[in-house]
């Protein structure tokens, strides 16, 4: 390959455009832009591979999870009782109201149940009662329990 080879000439011309010894500050700035781009291209390509890997893994994980896992989403992390919430959805009419009785440190559960049972409205005076880790006895004998489980979660209805 001689110095007059067209490829060599093109490369020399291209490199000449980013020669930092060119007139100040043009040469320095162009060299800076070229260096800037080299870092960006390198970093972008490395992390492109990682991003596609990560997204592929996520896609596989999501595809292998079951319907309930997808439907409950954040509820899985909270450890909510899926069966209890599904029963509540089934028993309480879509435009009905309910009252949720939970322990004192259960703000997240309260928020999650409100989200999951939409469009049913929370109402402290509602006939439907979802007793989530509470003592159903405090509601008296009038509560008609329609569903309960061993974890102490109960769904019932008060008269009226």
């Amino acid at each position, binding site marked *: 390959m001689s110095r007059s080879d067209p490829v060599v000439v093109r490369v020399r011309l291209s490199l000449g455009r980013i020669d930092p010894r060119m007139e100040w*500050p*043009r040469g*320095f*700035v*162009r060299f*800076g*832009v070229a260096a*800037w*781009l080299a*870092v*960006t*291209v390198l*970093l*972008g390509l490395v*992390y*492109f591979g*990682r*991003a*596609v890997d*990560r*997204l*592929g893994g*996520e*896609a596989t994980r*999501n*595809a292998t*999870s079951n*319907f309930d*896992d*997808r*439907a*409950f*989403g*954040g*509820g*899985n*992390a909270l450890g909510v009782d899926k069966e209890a919430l599904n029963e509540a959805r089934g028993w309480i009419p879509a435009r009905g109201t309910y009252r949720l009785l939970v322990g004192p440190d259960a703000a*997240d559960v309260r*928020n*999650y149940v*409100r*989200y999951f049972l*939409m*469009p049913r*409205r*929370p109402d402290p005076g509602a006939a439907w009662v979802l007793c989530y880790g509470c003592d159903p006895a405090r509601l008296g004998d009038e509560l008609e329990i329609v569903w309960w489980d061993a974890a102490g979660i109960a769904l019932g209805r008060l008269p009226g």
Partner: protein
Amino acid sequence: MTVRALLGLAIGNVIVLGAGGCLLWGAHGLRSWTELARLSGFAYMIGVAGLGVALSLELVVGVPVRLATVVLTCVALALAGLILGRLLGRDAPPLRRRVSFGLGLVSASYGALVAVYVEAVFRAGRLAPLSNYDGWAFWVPKAEAIYFFEGLDEQFFRELANPTYPPLVPALEAAAFHAMGSPDVVTLHVQFWFFLTGFVAAVAGLLAPRVHAALLWPVLLLVLVAPRVVARSLEPQADFMLDYFFALAALLVALWLVERRAWQLNVASLFLAGAMLTKRDGQLLAACVVVAALVASWGARRFAWPRIALAGGCALALAVPWRLWFTSRELHGELPASGFLGPFDHLDRPWPALQSVVRALLDFELWLLVLPLTGLAIALALLAGARVLPLYAALVYGLAVTGFVWVLWSFTQLELPFVQDEGVNPIVRLCGSLVLLSAGLVPLLLDAAWRGGDCAERRR
């Protein structure tokens, strides 16, 4: 999670694209169908902003938001664009015009990489559960309340967390539910994929004829593969939506500063309104853009300032009705409890707040080197002799960082130094806006640096 939901969502987004295309034609005009194809992402984002702002206003005045309302709003937006175009004498794009439509090696290769990336994001989001806390705690419940009760239900909008947060994203999510035929919170992630794809296409479409492909695509890809963007851009909440609107508004204002096309400022105004109606942080970011534009246009202030003020004023006017709605219902939480002067009682906070913000901005595990490289690009453009663009960019970033410090300083319930998990860290969320802004501004800065000054920037 069904094909019907996906199909409905796709049709809904095509309608939004149509409305945005008409608005774009009215505001900007289109010389060819090739130009329309190039700007289709931008048209889509105009449609998203227009629909979001319009639905927010309809919710505030009590218009029931149903499927018909969403469709009619899109039709009204399209008609508005067509009427504007007729009034301004826009020509329809000619059916046959010889236009060169070729992709260079860089554009084709990077275009392929970005296509692979967005496809991977789609697959990851397609069946993703709604796991993110803010999503199920209030953003999606607000959307469901709009979907089920056709408006700003007094009970839910009062009881759900952050009742003063604006309704644009819940309104768009409710529109997506209508398009899907049910409140499908799994497929809802695909709607956010449309937003991400629209943003990427918008930035690429706007900048492709203005900067060399080698300056555009590597920057865009670097922003897209930043770990935080990869992990969280499809979460059904408002953070990335705010970032898209802010970045597009700031990019259009930058273009206006060097090209002086009226449509750029008009559309920027719409995106600023969108940002302000997306999250309360949008007001802070919009103020940064307006102030930076005012300072950067000091040399032409007689011409520029009334126009910038008008654009900012129009955006603000569109955001005011929501503020009236929530203040009339005595909902609070918009500003620090200590008021505007309260932070001065806590003078021990600014320094650790600044440290926390800088740490969040420079976190390699979140944003790679996007922001340090942005700083370098500003310096190179300044050194090359450009003035308007680097000054504007430095001011937007500088004012935004100052604003973030103020947020940490004034909300005294936030402990300093701020080391909260990045998933719920509000400063990390705010930083995303500056990172996405870099996707649009940095190619312009590098172009100015390469060409050597502001004069070259005016060539189009």
